[in-house]
């Protein structure tokens, strides 16, 4: 009998998040700290531009790589924030979220046997997408004692003659870790020395709370070997619009565009018009949201400190990643028990890779009032555990 399914696909583990989702969905009155998207609505002026595009009948395909004006605005944005100049015609592609950009990058670059280095804990899609493209993933387990940064030593150890690509997932989901300029320089040197390309997922680049985010593409010699992934989901609270982009060397972007052209055609037109408005006039929205996230971040860190929970201070994205090893449970056991006893959903850290075991991800894309209630319940929960 013929094999109905692709063995490669069947071989991919289902996401740990999915499993936990099914448990949480059963519970009607749970409050959730499990969401990986902003709680803000997209700013009205951006939504209005999408509506206007619809009213004007802008309902057709755009060019494969995306509206030229949008690509130009993307280049302007990167130039003003990172002082890196991309050519809007040949070095940018507009994608269906950062997600598509990640997938395209692997598919455009990988030959079977190529190794892709993936630091974890990190976003759930890198490893499966790398595998689907035929790559061999090489996992680096990031350590809390390094504030979950990627260290030069860790990277050097993971490199072999087959290493082609390094995934650089900072600011990081789920840990909230960031890489600063000095950190990046050391990584860049190693990449250049070993002829390694970098897939830099900088989707949380606008959400840092300790100086401005530095893109690895802005480090000398790195623009030519970086595929920069970014998008509108997190910075502009536009997850449902499904819009992102990739910038990189034109030979790679050309092949990514080829796949995109055949598989997707073009990113959603309405979203592209809205995104132009976001890039042109959205800086204040970002500032407002960043301030709010930062307030909540401080609130959570303070709450965990008060409870003497081991939690390093994250400076990016909108997550904290406290350690729960003292309670002698796995992340999944902890999260499940917390959910059933206190009705609060957090995501078990192992959903983001083995090295996330012993941690839980807590999102602060929630109002301070909700966080307050959740932290009271957290306190109840751990007090019971500590006393038992």
């Amino acid at each position: 009998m013929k094999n109905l399914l692709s063995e490669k696909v069947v071989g991919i583990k289902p996401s740990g998040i999915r499993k936990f989702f099914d448990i949480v969905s059963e519970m009607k009155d749970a409050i959730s700290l499990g969401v990986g998207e902003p709680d803000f609505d997209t700013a009205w002026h951006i939504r209005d531009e999408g509506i206007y595009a619809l009213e004007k009948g802008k309902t057709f395909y755009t060019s494969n790589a995306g509206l030229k004006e949008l690509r130009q605005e993307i280049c302007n944005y990167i130039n003003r924030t990172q002082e890196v100049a991309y050519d809007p015609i040949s070095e940018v592609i507009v994608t269906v979220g950062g997600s598509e950009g990640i997938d395209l990058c692997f598919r455009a670059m990988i030959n079977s046997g190529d190794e892709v280095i993936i630091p974890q804990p990190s976003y759930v899609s890198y490893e499966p997408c790398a595998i689907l493209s035929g790559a061999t993933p090489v996992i680096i387990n990031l350590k809390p004692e390094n504030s979950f940064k990627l260290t030069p030593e860790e990277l050097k150890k993971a490199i072999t003659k087959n290493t082609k690509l390094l995934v650089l997932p900072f600011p990081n989901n789920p840990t909230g870790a960031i890489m600063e300029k000095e950190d990046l320089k050391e990584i860049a040197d190693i990449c250049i020395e070993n002829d390694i390309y970098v897939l830099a997922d900088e989707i949380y680049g606008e959400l840092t709370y300790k100086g401005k985010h530095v893109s690895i593409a802005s480090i000398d010699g790195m623009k030519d070997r970086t595929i920069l992934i970014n998008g509108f989901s997190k910075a502009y609270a536009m997850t449902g619009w499904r819009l992102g982009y990739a910038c990189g060397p034109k030979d790679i972007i050309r092949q990514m565009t080829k796949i995109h052209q055949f598989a997707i055609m073009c990113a959603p037109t309405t979203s592209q018009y809205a995104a132009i408005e976001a890039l042109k006039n959205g800086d204040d929205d970002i500032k407002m949201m960043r301030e709010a996230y930062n307030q909540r971040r401080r609130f959570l860190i303070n709450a965990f400190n008060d409870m003497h929970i081991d939690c390093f201070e994250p400076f990016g994205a909108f997550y904290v990643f406290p350690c729960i090893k003292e309670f002698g449970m796995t992340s999944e056991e902890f999260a499940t028990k917390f959910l059933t006893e206190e009705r609060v959903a957090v995501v078990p850290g192992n959903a983001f890779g083995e090295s996330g075991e012993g941690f839980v991800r807590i999102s602060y894309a929630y109002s301070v009032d909700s966080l307050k209630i959740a932290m009271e319940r957290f306190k109840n929960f751990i007090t019971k555990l500590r006393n038992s």
Partner: protein
Amino acid sequence: MREELLSLIEKNSRIDTKDLAVMLGKSELDIINELQKLEDEKIICGYHTLINWEKTSLDKVTALIEVKVTPQRGQGFDRIASRIFNYPEVRDVYLISGGFDLLVTLEEKSLKEIARFVSEKLSTLDSILSTATHFILKKYKDHGTIIDEQIKDEREIITP
């Protein structure tokens, strides 16, 4: 921190100083001192509560009154404005550019009270040339808050 503090309490003046301190990464004493300064400098002018009176049983309305006046020598509009804003029933008085001079609002009064204020008090003042009174039929948004907005978290409960 000043601006960030102001924009926080502008939305919710009831956040306590301890939480404000944590959220802004300052000590509670810093926050208390800063609030005191802001009050002294009259940057913070009051702490009010936004009430949707329509949901109460009181049958009252809000009126916006456009007022045309002749400004007085040496004092411009200030003197006549103070004659008006000293009435306790007046909520706001603004000097306005355009077709009239002062915008006066009276909040949550009965029609009778408003009529009495306009005919007996306001229009009898010296230098008032004319008035035009508008009644608010429905408030959609007040002080930046959408009245009757249902806030519901539409997000999936767990997402990567």
